[in-house]
């Protein structure tokens, strides 16, 4: 086994654009669940709405990339309104059911051949990121050191992705420390108490749903800009549950939690994949076939998530007194 290659691969995963995309979705979910107490199990849909919004804006409406990004964010706002207005008056557990259903509905809508002219159907959309690539200011060549060596377009993608993460994290940190964020945390604890103090709880929950949704939409855009295509298959429930894992790993009501949680999650995912795969290759593990390795690592991650929720419900960075997974 080539340990150096394994670690290089894993370390590269730490700052991959995909990691940044998941982290953005997790930051959005922290706004929903960690700070406001909204049980959103449809975060994949917000990411998908952003991604499809941007791609359709470019391909169908011929928007410049910057405008298309704003369009994708606007689509996420509309999706949040459509989802939130009828459901945010309901109890938290109903919201969980409705969001998971809405996410699936959106995915199937993108999958149907009826809209294939716009959405690309099951094949999805591609060739929307040419302008994004053309915007790359870095000249051709390789940049970086050690395990972090990238070609110019890889560097560009990483810088855009992680800059978005940093901006989103700073934004959330800033608003959560304001009186506005205090109302959200109050709602998480007891809606009726906050209502009795004269706050329009419904409006606050809707605002939180929109803000977390727009951040996830940005995550979805980074996700598809990196892959150069949008496919309906990417946005299944497993996408949502990976975001939940990232969030709970780091700590739900924290800013650093989703970031470090996301990095650690993908580091572990790559390491387990490579190590188990390597052990299978050299014959140390002889009861697994190579295709099974991918399944086994998710099995291990699932067990790790269970252990986490049982033994460290507040996540890595969470304050045990403040936020736990008790929803």
């Amino acid at each position: 086994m080539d340990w150096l290659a394994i670690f290089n691969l894993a370390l590269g995963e730490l700052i991959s654009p995909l990691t940044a995309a998941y982290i953005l979705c997790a930051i959005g979910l922290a706004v929903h669940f960690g700070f406001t107490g909204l049980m959103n199990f449809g975060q994949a849909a917000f990411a998908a709405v952003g991604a499809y919004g941007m791609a359709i804006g470019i391909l169908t409406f011929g928007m410049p990339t910057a405008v298309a990004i704003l369009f994708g964010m606007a689509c996420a706002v509309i999706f949040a309104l459509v989802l939130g207005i009828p459901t945010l008056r309901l109890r938290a557990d109903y919201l969980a059911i409705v969001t998971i259903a809405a996410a699936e509905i959106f995915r199937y809508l993108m999958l149907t051949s009826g809209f294939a002219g716009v959405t690309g159907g099951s094949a999805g959309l591609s060739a929307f990121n040419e302008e994004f690539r053309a915007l790359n200011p870095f000249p051709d060549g390789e940049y970086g050191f050690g395990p972090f060596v990238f070609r110019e377009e890889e560097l560009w993608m990483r810088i855009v992705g992680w800059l978005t993460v940093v901006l989103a994290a700073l934004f959330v940190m800033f608003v959560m420390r304001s009186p506005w964020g205090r109302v959200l945390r109050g709602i998480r604890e007891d809606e009726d108490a906050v209502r009795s103090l004269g706050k329009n709880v419904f409006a606050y929950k809707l605002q939180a749903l929109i803000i977390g949704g727009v951040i996830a939409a940005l995550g979805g855009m980074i996700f598809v800009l990196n892959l150069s295509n949008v496919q309906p298959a990417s946005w299944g429930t497993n996408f949502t549950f990976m975001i939940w894992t990232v969030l709970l790993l780091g700590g739900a009501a924290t800013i650093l939690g989703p970031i470090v949680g996301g990095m650690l999650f993908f580091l572990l995912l790559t390491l387990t994949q490579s190590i188990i795969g390597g052990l299978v290759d050299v014959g140390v593990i002889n009861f697994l076939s190579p295709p099974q390795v991918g399944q086994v690592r998710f099995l291990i991650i699932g067990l790790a998530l269970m252990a986490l929720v049982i033994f460290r419900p507040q996540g890595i960075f969470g304050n045990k007194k403040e936020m736990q997974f008790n929803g």
Partner: protein
Amino acid sequence: MANNISVGAAAPGCKKVDPILVADNVTRQFGGLTAVDVAHLEIPRGQITALIGPNGAGKTTLFNLLTGFDKPNTGTWIYDGKNLAGVPSYKVARLGMVRTFQLTKALSLLTVIDNMRLGAQDQPGENFLRSFLKPLWVKYENQITAKADDLLKRFKLDAKREDYAAALSGGQRKLLEMARALMSDPKLVMLDEPMAGVNPALTQSLLEHIKDLKKNGTTVLFVEHDMHMVRHISDWVVVMAEGKIVAEGPPAVVMKDQAVIDAYLGAHADTDLGTVAIKVVKGK
């Protein structure tokens, strides 16, 4: 009997000299059960009114209806000249009619001081767009923090300022909830069993706080089972039974009313429980 609160003699649903809240024909049914059926009720302004009655009399349901936390089947009620029927609960609170809950709703995972700050209304920083501009709200934030510290001192919670509300005892949470309700300088405070679970030493100071509220011009309406408290601080007592107002009047009069004694207080209302037990044993 003449008094200076009601117009004419005290009777169920009687008119008041200066009512702050007037409710008419308020009913609420849960399936076949009529929980609240109040034909007419006026709450006197600037006075301390106690709402008493046996369990299940509809006191808390009436509270919920009046504050917009529940919707009545019929009825209107006018608070300070405004018709409040159908007004959502948060708007009711903004109009200066603030309530507490029987089952205390402290915001457990917020600190005590943050709980208090949330009680303040009109904090401009609670608007999303303005929350970005700290200069717009930081001055008001300092003001409400000073006010919160003052209230915490009065309620003897200042030592707990930075603790999470979850770390407080049940009685302390009651105090916190009441202090939080006072952050907005309400015109009408509705306290649902403010004394339940509060130790006797604190009860005395709580009673003083409630009297202070009256001195400052705040109207108080409270639900309470502690007859000592009712007698001690209330100016007016409203008795409910099976959803209806069955008696009204000054405490000294109402508590001698045979209907009230039968419905609620019981024959041994004025005797120590120990003596009751002895009498019962002796009687056998």
